[in-house]
């Protein structure tokens, strides 16, 4: 190969490397604000991703229905008897619910999820890489979503909005290695920071004092420290407590309360109701 052609080849690679590094550096400085190009790409792709997901779900359920048709008759009978039982249970639940609302008012518990303005959003895509745990939702700035908005389900915390464009947003899940949530044991009240990236889908509660009494099975909730996550939201359950290297403190492995791998709809906290 002639010397000139070889030089040109490596020059092109060098130019591409420099330009991409420059892009990364600019993006890192901009932080959580999506630049116009990225926002445009996201806004264009979000509806396409939504359609792909919808089609997949519909085709999947149709195929499943055909496959299960012979079981449907027997299932129909079983469901009829279950329905009667469930109606009876529903009445009990309504009573318990009303009682719960009354007791909450009576006990003046700290603000919970029902005291916030919530926005329902659909998960339209997930980060396919093995590095990060993020997902895209189909609501953005136009619907009132902001960077830092907390995302939850009825079970617990999902994460917080990391980037937002007009009609979509990226949510950093609590299991992402870059996530840090002020957290504490619900019973022990030991305070730490819940971070992701410990193992597949498992979080790590760090900075626990050596005297921490947190135990396996204990529920971990948000501590409210840091000001991003409201206090008292469920994060997960402790599956293991260990001592840090050199015995300076403790850490706990926490299984998130929400099944982060199978999320379809989420709620975005827009702010307090009042």
């Amino acid at each position, binding site marked *: 190969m002639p010397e000139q052609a070889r030089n040109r080849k490596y020059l092109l690679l060098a130019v*591409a*490397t420099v330009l*991409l590094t420059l892009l990364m550096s600019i*993006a890192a400085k901009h932080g959580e604000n999506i630049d116009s190009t*990225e926002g445009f*790409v996201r806004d264009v792709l979000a509806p396409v991703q939504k359609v792909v*997901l919808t089609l997949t779900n519909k085709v999947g359920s149709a195929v499943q229905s055909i496959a299960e048709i012979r079981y449907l008759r027997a299932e129909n009978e079983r469901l009829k008897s279950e329905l009667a039982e469930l109606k009876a249970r529903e009445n009990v639940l309504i009573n318990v619910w009303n009682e719960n609302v009354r007791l909450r008012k009576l006990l003046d518990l700290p603000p919970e999820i029902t005291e916030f303005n919530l926005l329902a959003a659909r998960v339209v895509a997930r980060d396919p890489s093995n590095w990060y745990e993020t997902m895209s939702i189909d609501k953005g700035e136009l619907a009132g979503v902001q960077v830092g908005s907390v995302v939850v389900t009825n079970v617990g915390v999902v994460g917080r909005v990391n980037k937002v464009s007009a009609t979509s947003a990226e949510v950093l899940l609590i299991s992402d290695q870059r996530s840090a949530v002020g957290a504490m044991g619900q019973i022990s009240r030991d305070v730490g920071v819940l971070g992701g990236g410990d193992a597949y889908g498992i979080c790590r509660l760090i900075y626990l004092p050596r005297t921490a009494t947190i135990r396996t099975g204990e529920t971990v909730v948000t501590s409210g420290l840091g000001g991003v996550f409201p206090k008292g939201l469920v994060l997960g359950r402790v599956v293991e407590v260990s001592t840090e290297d050199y015995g300076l403190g403790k850490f706990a492995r926490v299984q998130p309360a929400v099944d982060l791998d199978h999320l379809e709809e989420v709620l975005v906290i827009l702010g307090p109701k009042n």
Partner: protein
Amino acid sequence: MGFSGKRLATVAGSMIGILLLQSTLLYNVRFFGARPDLVLAMVGSIALLRGWSEGLLWGVFGGLAQDFVTGSIPGSHALAKSIIGFTLGLLEGKVFRENAFLPSLALFIGALVEGIIFFLAAGVFGQIKWSFVFALRMAILPAAVATTIFAPLVYRLCNRIYDPPRFGSL
């Protein structure tokens, strides 16, 4: 060589399609706990089939598309994939099109190196909190294996795009 508009559109469309599939219905497809990087498999395959210039071009394109669709810092996947596209492109003509083993081996090594470059590039900008050994165990090595499993399939798809079968000819 040369870039025809139709072929550019086909490859770009295929790459975007693969990325969309990966971020939606194939999201939970894992091998050894890791998700395959089909965009990398495609970039690597194109590089092996077409040389360094197309490897570099599609590495930048596929990487940027991945950066914009996912939660990565823009440019990080593009940098890693363009370097791998370029490097694997230098092997053009040295691997047999009909033999699936050598391209798979090249793509496995390429995926390993791509993971390391991504770790360094994203790490410099504070986007990676893992230690290198942890990242190697959790992401780089399993992803390389998972990607290699899909490599022959993607390689054949690319071969078909660039060299479609001609029916009726001897």
